[in-house]
């Protein structure tokens, strides 16, 4: 039995060993390179008010392209009203219409780079739902202009935050667009003047833009209101006893590894172990920017087919595990008000007379929100006080989510990420026998190496789902 158990644990190389044991409590928190970094990075160049944004070297006398800059300045001031274009009237749309060949990055063809950037801009705009975004922004600006705005400070704060965030997104894309055209102008100018240095310099900038824009495409997938939040992941074993409890713990391990690879901080909040192996249910907290944006793609039922190590007859079993994801709203968001008197706080595992009679390190706490029946449990902390605080945080997020779901009924835009998880909503199949494959039933994205997926290589699944779901919204 121990042998079987060990096999089923699928413990990988020993490197994450300490992590698993100590729950990563001391792990420092890094933000995701491909997401946060990009937005910040972007603001460091490309803003129109900077006179010389593209050249760090002083070798080029500024008078040489003052002409071009003047033209650029001219259209920058008009940018809000007219579509940005180069001096000879080239726009992003026209670049796309030209169907320039997009070559490999290493081929130093400016048209190829420009077309790639233009394509990215187009995709980003689509993912951000550009036209809707503009309408929404106009609506918010109108609201902000109203005199009675601050009569309701909570609502006003919400409007001004959303306005700021949408405006920021719009400005960034506009800036990217302008920068592209700016450099096309620059290259044309360099060619006219036969300045090889200037040309290669501009080419280099275009290439960088091409790479940046590629990352920004990813970023645009995570433009939802709660996408930047940290989140809780809950995994629950389906029917089927030990085999499905083992599957639930494999799924949880998969998310822990994924999150650690991504540089997120993972904390175990609550875990109900199975009698023989695995877990009946567990909750982890994933801390870091855009955690919710990514993990929301995992909501649903995950199905495993394998020869069960717990079946002495070596039969093939199918097991299910349900995954729920709850965003942890930031301080700026409006939280559901919880009345202290609506709560019942319980010691989770009470027994005996307690007090001085018992020395127990078990200080698990369960909080019941009486009006809704929503509960939250935490047992991972070392003091009851901390368990209570953590359980309260989980409860708060659950009630917030409930409220969001309620509001989502009036706002169809949100329902996508808030699908109620029922055992019917199967999203992915993991087959270890008779063949080996992991397939997402929503996107048909599939991988023939289940081990790598179970070790946390989920990005392909997540990104294909996110882009597919945005495309779907687009069609609608």
């Amino acid at each position, binding site marked *: 039995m121990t042998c079987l158990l060990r096999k089923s644990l699928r413990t990988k190389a020993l490197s994450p060993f300490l992590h698993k*044991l*100590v729950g990563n409590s001391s792990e420092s928190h890094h933000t995701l390179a491909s997401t946060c970094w990009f937005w910040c990075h972007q603001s460091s160049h490309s803003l129109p008010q900077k006179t010389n944004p593209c050249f760090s070297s002083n070798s080029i006398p500024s008078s040489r392209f003052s002409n071009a800059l003047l033209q650029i300045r001219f259209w920058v001031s008009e940018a809000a009203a007219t579509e940005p274009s180069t001096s000879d009237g080239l726009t992003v749309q026209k670049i796309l219409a030209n169907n320039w060949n997009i070559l490999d990055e290493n081929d130093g063809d400016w048209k190829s780079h420009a077309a790639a950037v233009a394509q990215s801009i187009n995709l980003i705009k689509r993912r951000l739902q550009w036209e809707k975004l503009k309408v929404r922004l106009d609506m918010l600006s109108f609201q902000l202009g109203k005199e009675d705005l601050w009569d309701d400070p909570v609502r006003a704060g919400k409007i001004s935050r959303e306005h700021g965030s949408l405006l920021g997104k719009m400005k960034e894309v506009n800036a990217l667009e302008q920068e592209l055209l700016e450099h096309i102008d620059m290259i044309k100018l360099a060619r006219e003047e036969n300045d090889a240095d200037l040309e290669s310099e501009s080419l280099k900038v275009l290439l960088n833009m091409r790479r940046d824009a590629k990352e920004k495409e990813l970023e645009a997938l995570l433009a939802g209101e709660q996408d930047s939040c940290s989140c809780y992941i809950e995994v629950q074993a389906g029917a089927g006893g030990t085999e499905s409890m083992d599957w639930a713990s494999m799924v949880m391990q998969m998310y822990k590894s994924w999150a650690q690879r991504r540089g997120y901080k993972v904390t175990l909040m609550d875990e109900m172990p199975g009698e023989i192996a695995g877990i009946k249910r567990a909750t982890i907290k994933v801390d870091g920017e855009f955690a919710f944006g990514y993990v929301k793609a995992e909501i649903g039922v995950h199905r495993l087919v394998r020869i069960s190590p717990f079946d002495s007859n070596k039969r093939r079993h199918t097991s299910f595990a349900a995954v729920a994801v709850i965003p942890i709203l930031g301080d700026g968001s409006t939280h559901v008000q919880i009345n202290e008197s609506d709560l019942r706080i319980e*010691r989770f595992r009470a027994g005996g007379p307690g007090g*001085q009679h018992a*020395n127990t390190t*078990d200080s698990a706490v369960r909080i019941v929100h009486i009006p809704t029946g929503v509960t939250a449990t935490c047992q991972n*902390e*070392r003091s009851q006080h901390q368990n209570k605080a953590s359980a309260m945080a989980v409860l708060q997020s659950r009630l917030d989510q409930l409220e969001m779901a309620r509001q989502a009924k009036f706002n169809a835009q949100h329902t996508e990420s808030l699908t109620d998880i029922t055992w019917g909503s199967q999203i992915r199949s993991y087959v270890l026998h008779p063949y080996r494959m992991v397939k997402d039933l929503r996107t048909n994205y599939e991988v023939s190496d289940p081990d790598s997926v179970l070790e946390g290589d989920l990005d392909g699944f997540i990104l294909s789902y996110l882009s597919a779901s945005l495309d779907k919204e687009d069609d609608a």
Partner: protein
Amino acid sequence: MKLTLSSVYRPHSFPKLLNCSSFGILGRPFCSSALSSSPTCVKPQVPLFLRPPIYSTKLCDLKKWHDWAKGVSLSIGSTFVQSDNGADSNMLCRELKWLMEDAVEDHSLGMEDDDRVKMRIDIEELYCLWTQRVQERRPFQYVVGCEHWRDLVLSVQEGVLIPRPETELVVDFVSDVVSENEDLRSGVWADLGTGSGALAIGICGVLGSEGGRVIATDLSPVAVAVATYNVQRYCLQDKIDLREGSWFEPLKDMEGKLAGLVSNPPYIPSEDISGLQAEVGRHEPRLALDGGIEGMDALHHLCVGAALMLKPGGFFAFETNGEQQCCALVDYIKSRSGRSFCNLEIRADFAGIQRFVIGFHQ
């Protein structure tokens, strides 16, 4: 009774004044003996997690120890639960995780088997410690030398009661009371039989930096030494006054002046002591547990004293053995000094057991 017991616990060579050098963090050799029922030295031990990481061991050796310790824990099953409501395998495994947390300095990823891990304790000692935990039923908190209590991490060692989760609520009661009464917030509070200093430090926290002081007393010199260490760790020397002595004896100067009085006194009936959970009965100080025949000796003494020491409007909260003692104590207060107290209330702990008696001085 207190005095007779004290002769057992008072070491002959106890220095009356603790000098500061006894609190150095560095270099105290680890004491591996499970029982130190006769503390000849009241130099407080440094909790494991605060010791310097001067040891190192190969990751594979640490893993070997961990597998061994886990195996030992799993072999326990529910044996302890059945014998005396002790820990089960799950609990032991969680404790094991915490022991790792405290013992290992470096939890970074990407280590290989042959890489060395920095440790706060020798790997050999870890084997000793886990054997003590499982075989001798030494309380986990003594093993790691600390207890996480509320948002505090308190040093504990043999000779000092490990603060219980239930007792955390007393601080909440005080917090509620002072939140609507500035006079009580800025007054002097007392925690009698402070042990590790948990209640005193917790209350000091809710009184806030602008609030009053706390006087904490304990008969046991080990407790006073450990409480002093904890108070210093939270830099509350100026706010918490530790006094050695039995109950109200060190408080003669405070008669009628206390804004509040709290205590988690010994309340277990003497005859129950022998049947206690092994971690408690075999390892924790009887002085802090045994409340006399009915378990109410100290509680009665505290109620009588409270009437004398509290100022008008002053608040008290006492922890008891449960519903029976709560009711008996309320009756006792009403019959003995009915007019001295008002708003008497019995409060339950999170397990639903009526645990505390609280009230105000008239």
